[in-house]
């Protein structure tokens, strides 16, 4: 089956700035894709290009195999949930939801049924007669969702839909959105700059940086095998050790840590590296294993250090260990493991990288 949306080498400029820079991306029927990136990286611009607001300077966007170049927004089979919700203030909740249905020429009876169904879907039964200004932020967000979904689009574009909500409501809504997406089978493209939100909701994440796609993959791939320093740092906590490549062969790279001449780490690396090249070793905090020193010198592959800070975060425990080189490593331990170790500030410990835990970054 061809992908629902094909974005082919699309560039969109504002003056000298390429807000979207040669982006290629595909969205499959029914998938939940998160577009993740820092503020100003071009997420909204890319989403608006798909919805038909603004034209690409070069490249093509195909939806259902059809080139969208000359298709105005009102004829595209996608709907968008605006960051500001953009509910029509002079219409009731019901009329807001029915707006798109009436434009499609749906009969009164069908329209009433669809509106009721949508209100039920977003758990807003009984609010149909309200005006938008009589709704709370969370309620108006639900209405905006219902309105965007009412036409049964093949793709729903969501531009930071949860940004206005407080944390608790936000987490609840994340699950509700996921449930709605599963129930309807509509493809969702969610724009966010919150990596936690992207990880929690999406089946696939596209990380964007300065107008370009830095990496796409499942949340797990993005987290465990970041393709670059940028992705590694942007998604989740990370320890980045400066390193120099020793050798590269058959997709396996070895690198020596700066400031620890005898510490050589070997790992898979997706793109080829040259010996002597500067690189970085990325290790997630939960892959840093900590053991108490037993007086003996550190085992091979371990580095000695001193605990400089601890934090109990409920369920997990963070320890900061200052190595001999001066580099401070962040280690995340599960609650029970931390209790067993009983770490406190000033303890002398050995830190090593757990099995399968490190990545040598290509860039």
């Amino acid at each position, binding site marked *: 089956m061809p992908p629902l949306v094909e974005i082919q080498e699309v560039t969109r400029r504002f003056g000298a700035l390429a807000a979207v820079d040669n982006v290629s991306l595909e969205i499959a029927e029914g998938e939940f894709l998160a577009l993740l990136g820092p503020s100003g990286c071009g997420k909204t611009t890319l989403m608006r290009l798909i919805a038909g*607001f603004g034209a690409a300077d070069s490249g093509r966007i195909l939806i259902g195999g059809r080139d969208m170049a000359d298709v105005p927004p009102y004829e595209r089979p996608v*709907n968008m949930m605006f960051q500001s919700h953009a509910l029509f203030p*002079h219409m009731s909740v019901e009329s807001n939801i029915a707006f798109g249905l009436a434009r499609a020429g749906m009969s009164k009876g069908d329209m009433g049924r669809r509106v009721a169904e949508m209100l039920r879907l977003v758990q807003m039964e009984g609010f149909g007669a309200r005006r938008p200004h009589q709704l709370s932020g969370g309620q108006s967000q639900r209405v905006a969702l219902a309105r965007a979904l009412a036409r049964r689009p093949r793709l729903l574009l969501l531009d930071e839909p949860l940004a206005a909500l407080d944390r608790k409501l936000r987490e609840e809504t994340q699950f509700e959105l996921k449930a709605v997406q599963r129930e309807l089978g509509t493809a969702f493209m969610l724009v966010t700059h919150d990596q936690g939100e992207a990880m929690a909701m999406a089946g696939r994440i596209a990380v964007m940086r300065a107008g370009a796609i830095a990496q796409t993959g499942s949340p797990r791939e993005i987290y465990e095998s970041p393709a670059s320093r940028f992705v590694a740092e942007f998604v989740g906590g990370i320890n980045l050790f400066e390193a120099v490549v020793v050798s590269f062969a058959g997709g396996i790279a070895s690198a020596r840590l700066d400031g620890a001449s005898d510490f050589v780490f070997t790992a898979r690396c997706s793109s080829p590296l040259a010996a002597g090249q500067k690189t970085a070793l990325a290790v997630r905090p939960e892959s840093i294993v900590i053991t108490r020193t037993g007086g003996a010198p550190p085992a091979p592959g371990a580095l000695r250090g001193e605990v400089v800070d601890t934090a109990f975060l409920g369920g997990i425990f963070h320890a900061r260990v200052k190595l001999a080189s001066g580099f401070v490593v962040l280690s995340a331990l599960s609650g029970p493991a931390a209790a067993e170790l009983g770490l406190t500030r000033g303890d002398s410990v050995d830190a090593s990288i757990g099995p399968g835990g490190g990545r040598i970054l290509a860039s």
Partner: protein
Amino acid sequence: MSAGRGSLVERAAIVLPFVWLAVFFAAPFLIVVKISLSQAALAQPPYAPVFELSEGLGALRAGLRELSFSAYAALAEDALYLRAYLSSLWIAGLATALTLCAAYPLAFAMARAPAHWQPHLVMLAIAPFWTSFLIRVYAWIAILRDEGLLNRALAGIGFITEPLHIFATDTAVLIGIVYSYLPFMVLPLYSALARQDPALTEAAADLGAKPLACFWRITFPLSRPGILAGSLLVFIPAAGEFVIPDLLGGSDTLMIGKVLWSEFFDNRDWPAACAAAIVLLALLLIPLALWERTRSAEPVGGR
């Protein structure tokens, strides 16, 4: 202490507008009401009774007994007044509708213009105010006369052979009113349109509304407060307009402003003129007050 001073300032802030209203609105209004209840007289001032504070309370009470509604009764008896009112309201209403039609596209284009142009466009919209109103109305005589600019231009391009008789007709009055009051319509419309969130029309387009549907279902209804404000700003002064019908209108152009003028200056019948003014005020204010009432009775709507 500072709290005491603060509350004094606060109280002054509340009281001052009322003082302003009392001095500049209520007092002149009461004087006009009083004159409208007096009788015309060959005297200086040309009506009786005249209240003199120096004559004491007794004289005041005697004067009050002399007040009567005779000027209003005369208004009711003379069909000229009724026709003048109806004609004024008709001309003002038609002119308001025409002004709205002319102003809406202008205001719309202004609100959609690049942001850095907009302050300049607003300046241009009010630029006519830099020249005297009277001179601008006179200029229209030069344009609309039988041998004026318009007729010569039209004849020049071969569009007409006989001059169009526009000057000294109701059409000329309408043109004058639309021209003179256009900025009063453009500005509130512009501010209502510029305030609209552009995401609303985008959302409508996203939901399948073609440009025309976007306009009629979103932009236009949301600009209603501007339409209303602009229409009132045009209709109310236009209904009492004197200068434009006097200069551009014909002898048969009947507007209450002209009637008022001739009562004051030709007939020196101040009570009749004042009564006519009060009735005009009532005609304009009563529908407005009723409309306000129905609106405030509605559950809070709009924004």
